[in-house]
């Protein structure tokens, strides 16, 4: 049993390395900027969704307010950069730490809540964040911040002529989020989280400190999402509250994980790989009419997939493989 589990984990790691290697070669084949753009967004959402999955999938605390951490990452980076000239790399880390601290601060009251009350609280807190940023003059209010061009370099994390560096950063972030999940899955934290998700009372009685494990999950999750936010801000070179903290981000982070398989290692990557290109393609090929056909198609697909595969696409894969291989 133990051996099988270890073997599966080793296999996962090898598959991930191969996929990452292949992905790293993708820009050699794909020269089209539009397609590169989609690839970058796909990788970013895969990373975000993977991070969301740590708190909401593994630990079972469904958050629909992760846009808050995304926005905090983006704003910390850009405020430090535009107002104080701090390099985005430091802003990125700072944003991550701030987001993690906020997540833990919010965790104190929030983790007492259960079910819908918790979900609504997460939506509401992100919405408060959005409204505050929209009214915060110093941070650009609703107009947002346009990131000044300070040259083409890794140091400033700005690239004007090519999108490739963004691609590689997104890939690295995606690998990082995946690896953190992979690593945590087999750590004591991973086991605590699953116990907390399945039955908090039982977990508590067996000596798992439920509260602390939720806090841990929230902090890791928020940190990684904030890094994603910082990346997104540099990538777009323009941010405003609605475009980095809007409710749709919270949903877009959750959606790939849900479609791919919530609480699974591969779910978010798989979900993002299908969902994000689909989103972008429907938007650009049939969204041009401005009459919402893209929304109709996109929405219908979401309804169908979520109804047809409640456990996500990963469940399809494991069904076709040898049944009950590990569990």
């Amino acid at each position, binding site marked *: 049993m133990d051996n099988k589990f270890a073997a599966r984990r080793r296999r996962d790691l090898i598959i991930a390395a191969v996929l990452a290697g292949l992905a790293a070669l993708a820009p050699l084949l794909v020269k089209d900027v539009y397609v590169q753009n989609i690839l970058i967004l796909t990788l970013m959402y895969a990373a975000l969704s993977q991070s969301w999955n740590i708190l909401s999938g593994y630990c079972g605390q*469904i958050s*629909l307010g992760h846009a808050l951490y995304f926005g905090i990452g983006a704003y910390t980076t850009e405020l430090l950069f535009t107002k104080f000239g701090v390099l985005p790399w430091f802003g990125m880390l700072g944003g991550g730490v701030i987001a993690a601290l906020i997540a833990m601060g919010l965790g104190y*009251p929030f983790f*007492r*809540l*259960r*079910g*819908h*009350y918790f979900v*609504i*609280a997460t*939506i*509401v*807190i992100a*919405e*408060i964040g959005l*409204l*505050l940023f*929209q*009214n915060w003059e110093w941070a650009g209010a609703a107009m947002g911040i346009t990131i000044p061009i300070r040259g083409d370099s890794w140091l400033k994390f700005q690239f004007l002529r090519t999108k490739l560096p963004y691609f590689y950063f997104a890939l690295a972030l995606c690998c990082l989020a995946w690896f953190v999940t992979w690593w945590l899955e087999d750590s004591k934290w991973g086991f605590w989280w699953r116990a907390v998700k399945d039955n908090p009372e039982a977990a508590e009685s067996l000596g798992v400190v439920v509260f602390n494990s939720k806090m841990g999950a929230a902090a890791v999750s928020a940190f990684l999402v904030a890094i994603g936010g910082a990346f997104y801000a540099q990538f777009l070179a323009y941010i405003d509250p609605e475009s980095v903290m809007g*409710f749709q981000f919270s*949903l877009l982070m*959750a*959606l790939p994980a*849900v*479609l791919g398989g*919530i609480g699974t290692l591969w779910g978010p990557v798989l979900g993002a790989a299908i969902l994000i290109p689909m989103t972008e393609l429907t938007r650009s090929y049939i969204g041009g009419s*401005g*009459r*919402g*056909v*893209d*929304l*109709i*198609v*996109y*929405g*219908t*697909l*979401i*309804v*169908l997939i*979520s*109804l047809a595969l*409640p*456990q*996500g696409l990963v469940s399809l894969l494991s069904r076709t493989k040898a049944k009950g291989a590990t569990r």
Partner: protein
Amino acid sequence: MGLLYGLIAVGLALIFGLMDVVNFAHGEFLMIAMYVSFFLFAFFAIDPLLSAPLVAAALFVFGAVVYLLIVRFAMRAKANAGMVQIFSTFGLAIVMRGLAQFFFTPDYRSIPQSWLGGKTISVAGIFLPEPQLIGALVSILAFAGLYFFINRTDFGRALEATREDPGAVALVGIDKNRVFALGWGLGAALVGLAGAIMAVFFYIYPDVGASFALIAYVTVALGGFGSVFGAFAGGIIVGLVEAVTALVLPPSLKSVGIYAVYLLVVFIRPRGLFGSM
């Protein structure tokens, strides 16, 4: 305003609170109701006040159909039931918004003249806009009706029982799908009523629902799931808090007060004010 929030929330309270199904398309139900009301006015010159029952009837059918076509299957999901509900209804919301854009175009519309629009009434020296007043009245009636309905009729009991234990309910010969389809229809009809009244004094556009939906969720949760009275009280509190916040803070921040009060309430009472679940 609070009673109006209450009216929007009461339909949600029925679906979300009593049947424990998340409906992320609730705001879009409202949007559809406003459009129905608008077109009845534009083509047949029926005043929104008169057409309100028609709108409610239309939404009743719509709600029941949505249940039968989508939600029924979402509830059947064995794993991740909550997420499946969230995302299937969220997908539905996107589709509805898309359809509205497609058929009605994204233009802002309003009902220019109605019997009530723009009129005010003076009560003890305070001027109150008539449509809001009628809205408040309808809202109180709807609440009273629903309260009676849930607690005093066979259907209401069947609904509660079905949520509690669908298996046992099937044994005594109640068709779960019929009960829930009716419940959804009823919930949607109440939103229809709210939409018909709001069509008089709000602009109508495809995204209009989104701005009210979150407040409706907060209202229901504030009152506590499983309590119709809670949603009513929640609506009044939300309305009052919004009015007070609007005095203290800039208008763009008025929702912050509502959200803050929600957080405060659930931190003290994690199941809302009158919640039983």
